[in-house]
């Protein structure tokens, strides 16, 4: 570097590797303090019985986990979240991908669309809950439905479809899932759009020269190039949908029997309601492990897709 001679080890291979590691040091240190330590606490707590207040707690080993295995309501809430996630993965991401593809092309007003599609994520949950309740409300006043959906169904003569949307076990969860998708597709949209933008335009050129039609180009150029970004979007969708709860609360309060319960609400109920912090932490750990397994599963699939 300059005239002053530095100690020799500064040039050694080991120090070089260490310098590589230094790049991650800020992230790793923040992470250790704010995540690993609390996580250790949670994990430790999951093996105790504790009411959150008293200075002492009782060690119970894996009993909380054993109890959790037989907790039907917990697993029911898992299924509910999985259902929302499934709809989000298919409906939400397909819409997002279609919109991103459309906005990646040279079409008119694409600037307008790019801005408008991001409105739902920006809106506060309060507004979203208010608006959708206002749409899905079931009651009648003076012989007229005041929920917008029922009002219009009635107007166009589809009286048989008029429903008490949020209090019917058959439709409540689906309504929540659809609203969740509506709120979330903007994220998929911008991430996929950002991904599409980094694809080298020459690849499309080359495909066209080879005589590929637009479907073939999409299948052979766009999708393979997009696999990593799609994986990220999928993982984030899974995360966002499995952990949904504010939306559920703003739409159906504390829930319709157990038909709309989701895992985070169960955790909060165990913590704030029953005051069993250990059990709540066991739920959190169990939930985390399942999500990690799901993510690994998607990672394996995407590796296969890349090889194919």
């Amino acid at each position: 570097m300059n005239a002053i001679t530095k100690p020799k080890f500064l040039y050694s291979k080991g120090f070089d590797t260490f310098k590589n590691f230094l790049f991650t040091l800020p992230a790793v240190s923040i992470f250790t303090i704010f995540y690993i330590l609390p996580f250790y606490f949670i994990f430790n707590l999951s093996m105790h019985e504790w009411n959150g207040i008293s200075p002492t707690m009782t060690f119970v080993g894996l009993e909380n986990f054993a109890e959790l295995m037989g907790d039907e309501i917990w697993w029911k809430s898992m299924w509910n979240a999985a259902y929302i996630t499934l709809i989000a993965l298919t409906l939400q991401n397909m819409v997002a991908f279609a919109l991103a593809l459309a906005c990646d092309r040279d079409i008119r007003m694409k600037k307008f669309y790019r801005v408008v599609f991001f409105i739902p994520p920006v809106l506060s949950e309060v507004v979203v809950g208010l608006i959708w309740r206002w749409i899905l409300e079931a009651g009648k006043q003076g012989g007229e439905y005041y929920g917008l959906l029922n009002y219009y169904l009635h107007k166009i003569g589809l009286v048989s479809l008029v429903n008490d949307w949020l209090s019917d076990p058959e439709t409540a969860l689906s309504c929540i899932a659809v609203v969740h998708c509506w709120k979330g597709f903007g994220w998929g949209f911008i991430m996929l759009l950002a991904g599409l933008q980094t694809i080298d335009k020459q690849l499309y050129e080359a495909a066209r020269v080879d005589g590929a039609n637009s479907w073939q180009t999409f299948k052979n150029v766009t999708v393979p190039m997009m696999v990593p970004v799609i994986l990220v979007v999928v993982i984030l969708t899974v995360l966002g949908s499995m952990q949904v709860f504010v939306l559920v609360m703003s739409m159906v309060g504390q829930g319709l029997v157990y038909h709309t319960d989701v895992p985070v609400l169960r955790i909060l109920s165990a913590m704030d309601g029953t005051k069993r912090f250990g059990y709540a932490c066991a739920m959190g750990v169990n939930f985390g492990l399942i999500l990690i397994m799901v993510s690994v599963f998607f990672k394996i699939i995407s590796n296969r897709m890349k090889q194919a």
Partner: protein
Amino acid sequence: MKTINRIFCLCLCLLVTAGLLSSCAQKEEDPNTVVMWHWLTDRQSVLQELADRYKDETGITVKMELFAPTAYSQRIIASAQAKVLPDIYGILDKKQTFASFIDSGYVAELTEEFEKDNGAWEKSLFEKAINVNRFEEGNVYDVKPGIYGVPVDVTNTQMLYNKKLLAKAGIAKAPETMDEFLVAIEALKRVGISGLVSGWGESWMAGAFASNYAFNIMGEEKIMATYKGDVPYTDPDWIKVFRVFQRLSQAGAFIEGIVTKPNKFAEQDFALERAAFAYNGSWCVNVYHNMNPDLEYGVMLPPAVESDYPMLIWGGAGTSFVVNASSEKKQKAIDFLKWFTEKEQQAYFSKETRNLPANKEALASIPEVLEDFAKMMDRTTHPTIWKYNEDHVVSEKFEKGLQSIIIGEKTPEQVAQEVQEAKERVMKRQAR
């Protein structure tokens, strides 16, 4: 390259020093400042005004710190763990939690203060409100008997009826029995008006409504025996309670979607005259006034189904505050709460917030409807003054069961069976 390095290092150094500086700037303890944490979002300005008056009178500053109601419980529990509770705070939770706070030494006992001067302080407040903060001799929580908190307002939860809509359906007076109520519902249906609205998306409200009927059907003793575990939920009397919901649901007495309605929406519905009856707490007077000042309504008890036992309603202290046992400014904190519950301050507090005051003498100048609420204070009861309380898991099952009955998913017998199973599981766990 080097410039980048330098800029980067500079940024990091700045961040670190800023952090160090801010963490060094620890707050200094002022002996004349009492800190109070509360969650009463809509009463912050009134509380601040009172604190200002107190400072003028005594020179003691009361620092009001407001936290979101949704975050308050978490905040209190976390602060207790870190031993940084303020001088005055509230415990927004069940009696069991209150007892744990006392057990862990976070709450000062106030019995002596209440009993001073022949119990002057105690006598000035509603007894029902004080009882919420009292632990009786031989209570199940093993807490030393005494009073541990100060009520600053009272509430109760009753039924309301819309005078205009009832007149429209040709009903002369508010129904008193279930049969009269069902006749009224029929009449309302004929003119296309919905019956009862309430925020049963917040499940405690449905639970409280059921509890009213439990008192009416079987009386307090049997309810306590159930909570203790001596009487099963499959008892015919409890099935009668569940049947009330089935009967009301089958008669079409509930507004559509009642089971998932958050209370805010239920309040809207009643204020906009979409339903003739509502079940709501006394805070609603303020809410309805803001949404529709012209609304004409009256207060009534839930219509009784039997006559052996009286119909009781939920009520008692709306808001209570406790004093931190390890605070160095304990006496100053108590003095402030004492001043706060004096007649003059209570009258002001009640007038500004349209809530019922905890001080009996301050009842003089409140709106008429609110006065009707106040009359029913003798009929109030609340889980916080019961000898036994139900476990949260069981009451959740109970409340969800009520929803199942209302939407016609399950019969009263099925629900009773399920609640009983949950109860047995909890008792088995607690025995361990």
